[in-house]
């Protein structure tokens, strides 16, 4: 006995039995075949063996508070160093009474980042102008002068240093990378070969050699008698390094565009600069977002290399802690703490890139 429905009005039936629900999910994903079942059981067994001791080491048996190593009498991890050296991890050797300046810069940075990254920010246009001014405000706040106590860049360290190097590198390497990529695609041979030479040279040598150059011999190439700040030299090298990689990523985007786009722009009477700005780059940059963010993440991770030439970022502070008499040999704890910090920053960057990709994806989803 079936009820009559007008065409198109039949209510949706529930899915057939046994195709939904947790049992079905387990069957499908963990126990779909004998091999699969064995693999699942082996993994569960290994987890049961490994996880409890690890949880004990990380949390249950761990010591969280203490003056020095001797406070850690249990078998577990010794996290007490975090409380003791937290300020070092954040501020480096920035003078204690001036730390409010770093904090203020941090707050201003969050606002500037929100303006750039979040498209529903109120009064975004005005905020953008503020974001453009932020680097100058930050430089003034951090290094001092003009009313503030000057603080040498050798006092920078910890998270402050990572953010200074990372964000400067990211902000400057993108436009520089665009210029280099356009230069590499240029029809003018001199500009083209100069760009190719620069990009391939930078990509062929490790960053560490460039940092050595910055720390030992860059002063040779400056006018006699002049010298400038080590941090600034490092910033220049890190930025040049990242811009070469950025250029290659953007070149990929440029090459992915059909030639017709440029030809159409030219036939509409746009000159080179206009065609690039309104037609080519918006499309090319959109395609290259994953690569660009990957380069950003790479640059951010590469800031740790500054410890090899004696600057102390969080990893450098951590390495110093491992050698410090109070916390001697706590290497696993210290490095895991620093690792978590880097993981959080880099993972958020890659998630943001996914979000941006979806937002800018104006075509049809297939």
């Amino acid at each position, binding site marked *: 006995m079936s009820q009559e429905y007008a065409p198109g009005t039949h209510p949706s039936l529930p899915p057939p039995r046994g195709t939904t629900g947790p049992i079905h999910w387990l069957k499908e994903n963990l126990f779909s075949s004998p091999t699969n079942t064995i*693999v699942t059981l082996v993994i*569960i067994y290994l987890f049961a063996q490994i996880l409890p001791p690890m949880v004990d080491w990380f949390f249950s048996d761990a010591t969280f508070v203490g003056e020095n190593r001797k406070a850690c009498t249990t078998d577990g991890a010794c996290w007490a160093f975090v409380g003791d050296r937290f300020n070092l991890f954040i501020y480096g050797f920035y003078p204690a009474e001036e730390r409010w300046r770093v904090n203020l810069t941090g707050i201003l940075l969050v606002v500037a980042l929100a303006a750039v990254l979040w498209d529903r920010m109120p009064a975004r246009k005005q905020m953008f102008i503020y974001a453009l001014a932020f680097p100058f405000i930050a430089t003034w706040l951090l290094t001092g002068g003009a009313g503030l106590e000057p603080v040498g860049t050798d006092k920078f360290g910890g998270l402050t240093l990572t953010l200074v190097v990372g964000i400067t590198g990211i902000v400057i390497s993108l436009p520089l990378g665009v210029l280099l990529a356009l230069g590499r695609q240029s029809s003018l041979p001199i500009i083209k070969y100069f760009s190719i030479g620069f990009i391939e040279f930078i990509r062929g040598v490790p960053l560490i050699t460039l940092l050595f150059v910055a720390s030992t011999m860059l002063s*040779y190439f400056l006018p006699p008698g002049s010298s400038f700040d080590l941090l600034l030299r490092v910033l220049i090298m890190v930025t040049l390094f990242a811009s070469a990689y950025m250029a290659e990523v953007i070149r990929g985007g440029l090459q992915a565009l059909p030639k017709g786009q440029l030809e159409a722009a030219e036939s509409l009477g746009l000159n080179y600069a206009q065609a690039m700005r309104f037609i080519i780059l918006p499309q090319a940059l959109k395609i290259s977002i994953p690569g660009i963010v990957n380069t950003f993440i790479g640059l951010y991770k590469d800031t740790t290399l500054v410890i090899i030439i004696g600057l102390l970022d969080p990893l450098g502070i951590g390495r110093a802690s491992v050698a410090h008499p109070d916390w001697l040999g706590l290497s696993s704890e210290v490095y895991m703490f620093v690792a978590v910090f*880097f993981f959080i920053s880099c993972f958020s960057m890659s998630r943001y890139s996914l979000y941006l990709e979806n937002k800018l994806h104006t075509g049809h989803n297939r």
Partner: protein
Amino acid sequence: MIIRHGYSMSTTSYNSNPILRAWYDKETRSVIVQVIAMAIILAFFAYVINNAVINMANLGKDISFSFLWQPASYDINQTLIEYSSRSSHFDAMIVGLINTLLIAAAGIVLSTIVGFILGVMRLSNNWLTQKIAYVYIEFVRNVPVLLHILLIHGFIIYSLPRPKQAINMGDTFFLNNRGLQMPSADFQPLFWAVTATFVIGLSFAIWYRRYAKKLQDTTGKISPVWTISFIAVIVAPLAIYFLLGSPIEWDVPALKGFNFKGGMVIRPEFIALWLALSLYTAAFIGENVRAGIMAVSHGQTEAAHALGVSSSRTLRLVVIPQALRVIIPPLNSQYLNLTKNSSLAIAIGYMDVVATIGGISLNQTGREMECMLIVMAIYLILSLLISAVMNWFNDRIRLVER
């Protein structure tokens, strides 16, 4: 507004001003721009080099590579060739270069293996396997490689037991905070027979492979290439080895007092650098492998099955060759990254080329310019070599279109 601007450009191109007219001519403009660019570049280099010449003259330095033949007078803790503190800086450089090559080669092998395993795990139909690979990849590649190196090195140095309490693996391998003690081989005269068998077996396998292909092309008969190659290359040399009564004398390490005697040791620096670089790079390779396999359309597998090709053959003859085409170019850049990242060895004191010629030699002789030039040149050449090999491989597996 954009269009209007464009119009104004085209009207002004009929300008009567000769300079403007030259500027609006594409050819002339390109020459002008390039001359200006060239002038700026040359001026920049002239300025910089001039500064360097003046600065070096002020310091009484010159550019000379003769220091390379002076005694280095420092020791290197891992040397694969003859080296002592009386050897020259040049020898130190070669030792460092060999150490760099060693870590790069070992790292490339291990990272490829682990990377492929991870890539396949990411595509597994077992949810747990998939998620383990996912968590591993996300965690490892979002943490700086230098941190991985320091973490593993710190673990070996601080958390592994002293030699006295070394972790004993079958009385032949001992893991402790001074590295991995393992037996060293002392080859007896008769060993040449084993080597000879191996070489003959290898050449036979290569010949047989070609022969089997020809046979298949002409008659369609498929020969058991893999089994026969395996017997020729692995089983035959092993059989000869045991027939001749094991002509290798193993020097097994043993605990004497506070340290191990005999055998050989893989130093903590090498282990840490090798594991860290490989496991870090493997996370990236895993993602490349996954992308490569996913890039092969499922229709290819279905078509192969429809033709009656078995599953394993489909994988080997249809899916993997096509996936490799997508995987090889990013794999190339991962290998380059691994090689360049091996320069971080200096952070834990593994004596690679940066730590020898670019580190201790540089500090001892004060010849920054020359040492950095040498180091950079070495890395540039290495990069070119790896790229060349990978490009050759890429050309071989490339899609040949008519």
